[in-house]
């Protein structure tokens, strides 16, 4: 019986938006030639998803493929199935130069949900990213910084944002997000 625990064990906070740590996620860093047929097929077989365009993320629910850099993807799958996914990738890519490594425990993931405009505002307090609807929409994936730590964000839908950061700074990130969601701190720009 696994006792694996995420950094904050699913902590949550209700402010002008709701902030939750999402618990353990299966994550794989996959590096290789993203344009190669082997890679496309391997990703499709392992996740059912296509390799996303530059700056984008494909998927829904708990199953995602994110474009990290010209030679790197982040695959997000159920925590329990990460070794199967890894094995599937390893088999499919055995002939080509690549790197697939389990990074599930390297990271923490948060969800901000509620009023879409306020969710965008909370992020805009911390990340130097244009969060206007015309600049950032569901389907896009943005790596940046959140205050003083690296973070990646995307919007699964118009009323939520997911944030990935390193596990060791999960508490810092949570505190930041709580502050950004503090009652009374509405900026009322996007709404």
């Amino acid at each position: 019986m696994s006792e694996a625990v995420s950094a904050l064990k699913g902590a949550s906070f209700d402010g002008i938006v709701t902030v939750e740590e999402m618990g353990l996620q299966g994550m794989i860093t996959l590096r290789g030639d993203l344009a190669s047929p082997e890679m496309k097929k391997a990703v499709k077989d392992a996740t059912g998803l296509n390799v996303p365009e530059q700056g984008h993320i494909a998927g829904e629910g708990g199953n995602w493929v994110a474009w990290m850099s010209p030679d790197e993807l982040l695959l997000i799958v159920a925590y329990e199935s990460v070794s199967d996914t890894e094995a599937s990738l390893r088999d499919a890519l055995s002939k080509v130069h690549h790197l697939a490594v389990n990074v599930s425990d390297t990271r923490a993931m948060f969800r901000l949900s509620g009023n879409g405009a306020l969710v965008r505002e909370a992020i805009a307090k911390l990340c130097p990213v244009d969060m206007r609807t015309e600049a950032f929409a569901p389907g896009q994936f943005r790596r940046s910084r959140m205050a003083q730590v690296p973070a990646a964000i995307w919007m699964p839908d118009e009323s939520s944002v997911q944030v990935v950061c390193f596990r060791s700074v999960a508490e810092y990130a949570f505190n930041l997000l709580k502050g950004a969601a503090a009652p009374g701190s509405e900026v009322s720009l996007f709404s």
Partner: protein
Amino acid sequence: MLILTCPCCGVTAEETEFHGGGEAHIKRFGPGSSDEDFHGYLFEKVNPKGVHFERWRHANGCGKWFHAARCTVTLEVFGTYSAQTTEPPQDIKDKISAKRPGWSWREFA
């Protein structure tokens, strides 16, 4: 507070996502090279007032290195381009020539 466009991921972002890496297009001199060459490689800088070519890393982003052509006096960015090259690409040089006729930088002009 500069803005730069990372040619590797296409993101235009403020300077805090990036990390400057100094002069670009420096040729490495290893064992067997002369003292002068090695010194030139590691320490001598052009440090121009004007057109400059430099290295940047999109550290809080895609993590990739790239090159930028920039004016150190006005901070105008003429363009960014791949780090996997030993000299500035022609289109960048043309852009600079249009704005700074007669420019030169090290062996390039």
